[in-house]
């Protein structure tokens, strides 16, 4: 839907604060087929893919978050996406793949190296120091609530490659994301690298989920994210409360 007036609000990397508004409430509209969203602005689809590609190649600890619609063979559409999904992963050196297998909250504690969960997605982002990520195959409701929570407390650049109408709360989003568009995205990654964008983790391969366990089993130690990440911040200092676990 074409926006008649550009809204003042921009969907940029956080931390945005305790409870950012939903971008849709702030006047951000979803793109039509052939368009994309970058930081709340409607752009041609290829521009959104380019912005997503650059973020994934140049920001720290890039990560793919495949959801149930990517992980399970629900229908032909999801099955035909699996091969191009790995094409995309192979074009992003040092990319992590951390799945969102379902939406049930995981208590008492998630393993943030193995999964991301919509009830506490920021834990996975913080733990792995992820500064760029792609959500794909996540049902729209859970993608949206996740995207807002990540924008609230992390500096992660979020990308939503959506099979439906797209996501206002991601920094970059493309709607109607078919297997064909996934192939185009792999091609976009190749193109931006050819045009001079140097990947941050040149030479590294895919880092599977559960990297710490794998490192423990194999003795490998090349995948632990070493970079420091920005702290979550609020617009004012919070009083330190009582430590509930103190004896």
């Amino acid at each position, binding site marked *: 839907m074409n926006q008649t007036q550009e809204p003042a609000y921009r969907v940029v990397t956080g931390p945005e604060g305790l409870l950012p508004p939903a971008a*849709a409430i702030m006047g951000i509209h979803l793109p039509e087929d052939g368009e994309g969203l970058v930081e709340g602005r409607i752009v041609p689809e290829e521009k959104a893919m380019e912005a997503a590609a650059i973020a994934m190649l140049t920001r720290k600890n890039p990560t793919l978050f495949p959801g149930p619609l990517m992980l399970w063979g629900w229908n032909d559409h999801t099955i035909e996406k699996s091969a191009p999904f790995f094409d995309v992963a192979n074009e992003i050196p040092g990319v992590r793949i951390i799945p969102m297998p379902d939406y049930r909250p995981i208590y008492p504690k998630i393993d943030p190296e193995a999964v991301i969960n919509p009830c506490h997605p920021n834990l996975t982002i913080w733990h792995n120091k992820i500064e760029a990520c792609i959500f794909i195959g996540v049902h729209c409701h859970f993608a949206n609530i996740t995207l807002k929570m990540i924008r609230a407390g992390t500096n992660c650049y979020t990308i939503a490659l959506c099979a439906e109408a797209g996501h206002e709360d991601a920094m970059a989003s493309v709607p109607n994301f078919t297997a064909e568009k996934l192939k185009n995205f792999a091609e976009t990654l190749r193109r931006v690298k050819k045009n001079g964008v140097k990947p941050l983790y040149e030479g590294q391969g895919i880092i599977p989920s559960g990297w710490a366990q794998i490192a423990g089993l194999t003795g490998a130690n090349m995948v632990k994210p070493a970079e420091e990440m920005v702290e979550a911040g609020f617009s004012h200092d919070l009083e330190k409360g009582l430590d509930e676990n103190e004896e």
Partner: protein
Amino acid sequence: MSEGLGEEVKTNPQGDVITAAPAPTKEAKKGAAAQRVVDPDYLFLQAPREKTFITGSEAAKEAIRRANVDVAISYPITPQSETMQQVGYLYAEGYVKDYYRGEEEYGVMSAIAGASRSGVRCLSATAGPGLMRGLEVISSWPGGRLPAVLLIMCRVINAPLAIQPDNVELSYMLNTGCLLFHAENQQDFYDYSLAAFMIGEKPEVTLPVAVAVDGFFVTHARGWVSLPAADIKLPPRDCYHEAVPMMDNENPPIRISRDAPIQKSNFISYQMHASWQQEIWAAQERSRKWIDRWLGGLIEVVNPKAKIMIVASGSAVSQSREAVRQAAEQGLEVGLVKIKSVRPFPADEVRAALDHAEKIIVPEFNYVGWLAKEVKSTIRGSERVISGPRVFGGMSMPTELILEYIMGTPNRR
């Protein structure tokens, strides 16, 4: 009086006489079987239509006939009963796949929630006290992201008991998260009810839609309604392309939860719940595009340059149209803003339509003046709003009453 002698009269356990309609004819059943699915754009906007003179209840029936409904569940209450009786005929003829009477509204709305979770197209209808009884469950539908259509035939809800027209119940619907359309007449009731299914089921919306109409004034009165042919219908609900997974126990993964038990006492749980609530209202915003496309906008404006503007919804719009015509006979131009969609509320459109107005009149069929409050909280210069005239408890609204407010405000200098 010998005609009835010797005939067996069936009664229920309470002794009430059971009446039954004749079984549908083979011809009637053929009609349902012969229906073909068409594109919603064609059904709503392009298909040739013929005018017919029917009641609001019959208009709803014609919408349901073309809506490809899987399950219709309700509990009878005046003035909704007639519509759901009509839907019963559609079930008998094969247009609706399943249909039953729940035990009461709480159970009805719970059953609709379960049916919607399973991915089928759902319909219910209620009125006044029935809506109040079902409201707790209805308020949980949006958070469950449960597409369903709820027809509300407005009537008095409060004591002293009455069944008469009064739309105060819609004030309780404003903050549930459901989309809420308010039909002016029989035509609207047909159009809004049919489009509601497709709007609520859009992946980026995935919300229940309530379509309200003022009971009796519209449900039991006849009006001209343009209908497309009965041999076409909407595509079935496509639950595999919605914002949440359906409860599918036959296909893996069967245990993907859609309503997370997030009642843990920690900040992360609170944050998730907050983000979830935000998403419901964000989804409402996304419905605007489809309301614009299929209902021709969230508002309609008559005489947009007039200095005196009326804002109304439901059957108050019809009375206002007549008042506008009568004012014109007296040489006074009066404008009218018809609110079609109460949720999402057309804030930008209302602000733009009323920016120039010197006096804004909001006639309503309820005591609390919920629409006047909405308008006042939306526009710049709320002192321009005259909250009235209002009638309630079943009273009709003579156009002369609106004209009094146009010409001056009663009891004000």
